[in-house]
């Protein structure tokens, strides 16, 4: 990142924090509704992720620019109006680019307004950081959100219809798990991913503990 080298406080971590350690979906559990609702195919998940990233970048940037102008008492209302403005822009933009995707996502494009992740980033990060730092962080968060959507979308499409991006993956003998495309599938797949991450984290912790005790053993000897 060029910006990261020029200015001291922007580190690689400002960007990476959204991808893994504070991933908005898998760690913070924010913005769950679109995550579950539109991830029944990879294409929908990607479109939703990009739309949300765009709104996130624009609105946190705007909040960061206006952060000294907005009075503290009405800040939430001001943020919401800024977000709603950019969502309206995205709404018309997607309608113009692809009517097919617009119909598939339905009301969930307009519901980006109430994605708690965006409001959360505006409040927690953009309102107290300068523009360049905010943009780097928001980009990381947006990419983290998109990756999470793709994680869910690919599993659900693969199991639910035996396809990936519309191309068949398994042979004709594959019996699709229709349940994965239906609402319960969304809950189960997200639950499954959370279980996987919790398991990885627990193994890491156990390994760290074991290493520490081994090192302690060396010191005694």
């Amino acid at each position, binding site marked *: 990142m060029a910006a990261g080298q020029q200015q001291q406080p922007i580190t690689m971590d400002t960007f990476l924090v959204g991808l893994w350690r504070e991933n908005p979906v898998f760690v913070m559990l924010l913005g769950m509704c679109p995550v579950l609702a539109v991830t029944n195919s990879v294409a929908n998940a990607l479109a939703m992720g990009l739309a949300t990233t765009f709104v996130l970048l624009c609105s946190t940037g705007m909040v960061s620019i206006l952060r000294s102008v907005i009075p503290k008492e009405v800040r939430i209302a001001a943020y919401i109006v800024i977000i709603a403005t950019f969502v309206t822009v995205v709404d018309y933009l997607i309608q113009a680019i692809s009517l097919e995707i617009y119909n598939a996502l339905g009301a969930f494009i*307009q519901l980006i307004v109430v994605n708690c992740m965006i409001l959360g980033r505006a409040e927690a990060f953009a309102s107290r950081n300068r523009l360049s730092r905010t943009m780097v962080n928001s980009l990381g968060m947006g990419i983290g959100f998109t990756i999470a959507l793709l994680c869910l979308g690919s599993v659900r499409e693969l199991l639910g219809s035996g396809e990936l991006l519309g191309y068949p993956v398994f042979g004709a003998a594959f019996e699709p798990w229709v349940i994965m495309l239906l609402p319960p599938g969304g*809950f189960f797949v997200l639950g499954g991913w959370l279980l996987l991450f*919790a*398991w990885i984290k627990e193994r890491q912790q156990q390994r760290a503990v074991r290493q520490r005790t081994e090192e302690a053993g060396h010191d005694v000897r």
Partner: protein
Amino acid sequence: MSADSLSYIFLNAAIINNFVLALFLGICPILGVSGKLSTAFPMGVATAFVMLIASVSAWLINIILNHFGLEFLSLIAYIAVIASAVQLVEMTVKKFSPPLYRALGIFLPLITSNCAILGVALFQTSYEYDFVQSLFYSLGAGAGFILAIVLMAGLRERVDLADVPSIARGAAMSLMLAGVLSLAFMGFSGLGG
């Protein structure tokens, strides 16, 4: 039952297309506040109340914006009305029940960003419901939300006492529970023809 009878609209919003378990709206409070039955129920009622206000106001907003040909402002207008309604509820709860106010904490102002409420306003507009129909739609949606959050809270209170593997504690378990509930609600999809 025909598709635009009032009873069908109510049942459709409450059970068949339950906002939480079938349409994935309002998941955040369902995961956040459903730890205990005693806070889950008031939270459900507060949300249902804001839904009712939002639905009536959305109907009015649509008429006004249509009159002036400003439909593209509808989203901003809805969210502004919802935010003020939530402020109203927050002040009422703070005045009449401070313990409840503290128990609900951050999730009370977050009703603003509950997708279920904006969802009611958006869906009733896209279905082109008239005033009475949207009233029943929002009542049904509210009832469905209360039902879902109370069921979740009941299940989670039971799971707290069960012996769950350590990696499944917390959010993963709640999501699995929600999945099972959602599976159960799919059984209603034939209701009302």
